């Protein structure tokens, strides 16, 4: 297993009609990393994620997970190999309660019923849900709690690689900080790739940041160097800061 990066894409392309949402991405992520993916809207971040799990079939190119090509594998088998994804749109089962949602995520693991129950309880503690919250239908949760429930599902599936698409969207700063802690816990056992816009969040978590722009990797570096990068400022940070100045 060692010797291979946990994830490597080679010339990954995804076209929708004439538009290449992902346009030749070569991305290498080492085991144990927390990698942040940033980029303006439409840069192809979410599409890239969905190509990794084959929720979208890549038009061309390869995805290597622990050195093995995922080509032709259906989504559920990729999940069973250990790639878990939290999509951008909150995806929990609204009609099931929190415990059932998390229980579902544990099913890929080969555990006995007692071990599963214990795993579910452990995850509930890790995301800070008491019994009262755990019995509630997911539909009745607040926005932040839904996100945490989803992170709980990721924790419960015990993945090798976790893909998080905007896990702090719409959160207050305190909620964001709590999410940082949950993701650090996730990173203790899994490699994490996370798409985010929140700069403080990125600074607190990421060792390395990859900037996507128009379906391509623009630059890959530490957060400080990325912030100092002229091109990145122009296409992304600069524009965002301008907007912030305009509002403030």
């Amino acid at each position: 297993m060692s010797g291979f990066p946990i994830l490597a894409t080679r010339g990954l392309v995804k076209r929708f009609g004439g538009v290449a949402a992902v346009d030749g991405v070569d991305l290498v992520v080492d085991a144990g990393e927390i990698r942040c993916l940033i980029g303006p809207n439409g840069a192809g971040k979410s599409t890239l994620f969905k190509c990794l799990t084959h929720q979208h079939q890549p038009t061309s190119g390869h995805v290597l997970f622990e050195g093995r090509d995922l080509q032709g594998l259906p989504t559920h088998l990729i999940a069973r190999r250990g790639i878990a994804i939290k999509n951008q749109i909150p995806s929990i089962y609204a009609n099931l309660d929190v415990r059932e949602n998390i229980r579902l995520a544990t099913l890929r693991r080969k555990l006995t019923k007692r071990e599963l129950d214990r795993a579910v309880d452990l995850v509930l503690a890790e995301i800070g849900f008491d019994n009262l919250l755990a019995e509630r239908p997911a539909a009745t949760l607040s926005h932040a709690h839904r996100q945490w429930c989803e992170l709980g599902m990721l924790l419960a599936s015990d993945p090798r690689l976790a893909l998080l698409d905007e896990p702090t969207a719409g959160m207050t700063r305190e909620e964001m900080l709590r999410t940082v802690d949950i993701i650090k816990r996730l990173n203790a056992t899994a490699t994490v790739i996370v798409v985010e816009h929140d700069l403080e969040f990125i600074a607190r978590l990421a060792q390395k940041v990859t900037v996507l722009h128009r379906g391509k990797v623009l630059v890959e570096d530490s957060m400080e160097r990325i912030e100092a990068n002229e091109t990145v400022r122009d296409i992304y940070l600069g524009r965002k800061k301008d907007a912030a100045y305009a509002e403030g």
Partner: protein
Amino acid sequence: MDQFVILCFAVVNSIALLALISLGLAVIFGMMRVINFAHGEFIMLGGYATVIANHAGVNLWLSMFVVSPMVVGLIGAVAERLIIRRLYGHLVTTMLATWGLSLFLIGAVTAIFGNTTLGVSAPLGNITIGAYSIGAYQLFLIAVTALLVVCSLLALHWTKYGLIARAAMQNAEMAATLGVDCDRVYATTFIIGAATSGLAGALLAPISGVLPHMGAAYVARAFVTVISGGGALITGFLSAATILGPVEALLSYFATPVVGQASLLLLAVIILRLFPTGVSSLWTGGR
């Protein structure tokens, strides 16, 4: 007094009958949103399997509870693989295809067994209530239906498979990212639905006999019950059966069976006018 008891029995019997013929459809339509026009024929095949097996010397109970569900489940598996699987999400095409399947099954059974009624005699004898007597087998039928409904509820809410099935039906793409093989869940669900319909047909065979086009008598009432029930899978069609059954039974008793069935359809229209997503929207919030 005796007449009142008999009337109550007729009402409960009518509810149970609706529930029994709807259960398999509730599984297939309710969970997979597949409109299976061959539902009546699955019931018919279940009936035939029991009658034929019994005539061939197999114990009646064994024929009903083992042979019929297995035979119809197997036919369901073939139908799923050859037809249904290719048409998921295409509602109208599926309707046409299963209608074709229904005609084919009627034709095939007619060709093999002829267009005559076959039957087995109802076991268990009669129970006398005052001046009236009712078949003990019908009481048995009510009990089995109740048991089936309870088992379905338990399976859906307390087993691992039930949880996976509910998840796959709610959102297949998400379930796949959790490692669920949705194709297999669909196939299994369809087979369980078919086998349940087969069992229903088997249980009805001693009462109604079997005939190649007997399915037509059940399919409309089953659809009406499941659709009036709405989103909540088991509790939905059960409550619809509880509303529709008494009306059909009482009007059949005081007027004629034709009036009873017509009023069942009329009542369903009213229910769907008031609750477009079925009566269960009252407690599920209209999903």
